[in-house]
């Protein structure tokens, strides 16, 4: 086994008030270095005000074959969208 640094997934908060968003990944020996590297790689042009780093092998993900069972049930529930309901014009904005 070679001494390869682990892979980290990088999440950046672009501006105050926004949530952190996945921007990419990088290799680093530990979390502290991952943050330093992320600063150099992903925020060279004021792209961020906060950085999260997560070691990639700690992330669990749904599998593409689960697409059906996971997301199809919501397709038949159109009443969850406000536009499902007709509100008379006389009632005004709602």
């Amino acid at each position, binding site marked *: 086994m*070679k*001494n*390869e*640094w682990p*892979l980290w997934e990088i999440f950046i908060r672009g501006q105050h008030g926004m949530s952190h968003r996945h921007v*990419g*990944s*990088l*290799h680093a*020996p*530990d979390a502290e*270095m991952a943050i330093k590297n992320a600063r*150099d*790689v992903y925020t*060279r*042009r004021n792209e961020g005000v906060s950085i999260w780093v997560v070691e990639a092998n700690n992330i669990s*993900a749904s*599998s*593409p074959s689960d697409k059906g069972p996971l997301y199809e049930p919501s397709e038949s529930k159109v009443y969850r969208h406000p536009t499902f309901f007709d509100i008379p014009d006389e009632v005004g904005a709602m």
Partner: protein
Amino acid sequence: MYAQMIKSEATQDDPEKLAAFQARIDAGEKIEPKDWMPEGYRKTLIRQIGQHAHSEIVGQLPEGNWITRAPTLERKAILLAKVQDEAGHGLYLYCAAETLGVSRDEITEMLLDGRMKYSSIFNYPTLNWADIGAVGWLVDGAAIMNQVPLQRTSFGPYSRAMIRICKEESFHQRQGYDAIRKMAEGTPAQKKMAQDALNRLWYPSLMMFGPSDKDSVHSAQSMAWKIKMNTNDELRQKFVDQTVPQAEYLGLTVPDPDLKWNEERGHYDYSDPDWSEFFDVIKGNGPCNVDRLAARNKAWDDGEWVRDGLLAHAKKKAARKVAAE
């Protein structure tokens, strides 16, 4: 552009799955790393993204060469920022390649032992400061031609890497044009240097798009898979059409006596580069092939103790933390 002569891998997958896969691509869907994909698609992409990444990294060498000798502090800071961007571009692309199941060390070693290539352009030297301007203007200009359409490529991680890269690449081309413009508008000696840089880098820049379409045998499959978006000749023509007026503005002459506007086609007619030179450079016989690979190998070998040391330190710290809990 940074990927030249990428061989499409033959694919021997279940025809039904292949058809469904092609239908997804035709519908404009993005393919993500965990999705089913033909082995040929995976292998071709590793080779293409890897070659692109290697080009970004090796491409730092001809420019890094001039950081300490930039004519002013401002130019030095700009060049430093540009070369740092190239490291970032290499990194975005390596990460995209890694999602296809190749490790960073594997792909790095394939560059170092010559199993993988980088763009032919970086085997040409940067002899003086005018070359740095010309590299930004022409080489990054050619790169953009190819990278802009690749933002729409079918493989999600590759597409996202391209979007990031394109955002930064325009700075590279503009700083190059700005640097060479200073020289073209300078003293007669400076203008001569600018012309000389254009003379030497024009044809190598045209070569970046790869061989002519009639000799480019691997395009059809890659285009069907949307990992190649335009043919080599389409992009080369676009580059010529864009660059000639920019050269004219500088008062510089493109070193091609047969270059002329073709009213009927609505494009410039231009001369092909010397393709035998291109194939020779690809084979390893360009002016700087040996130097470039030696520099990358040295950096990798010299850095080994740092990589190992930092990892050992991280492990020790982690163990101490566990012991304390």
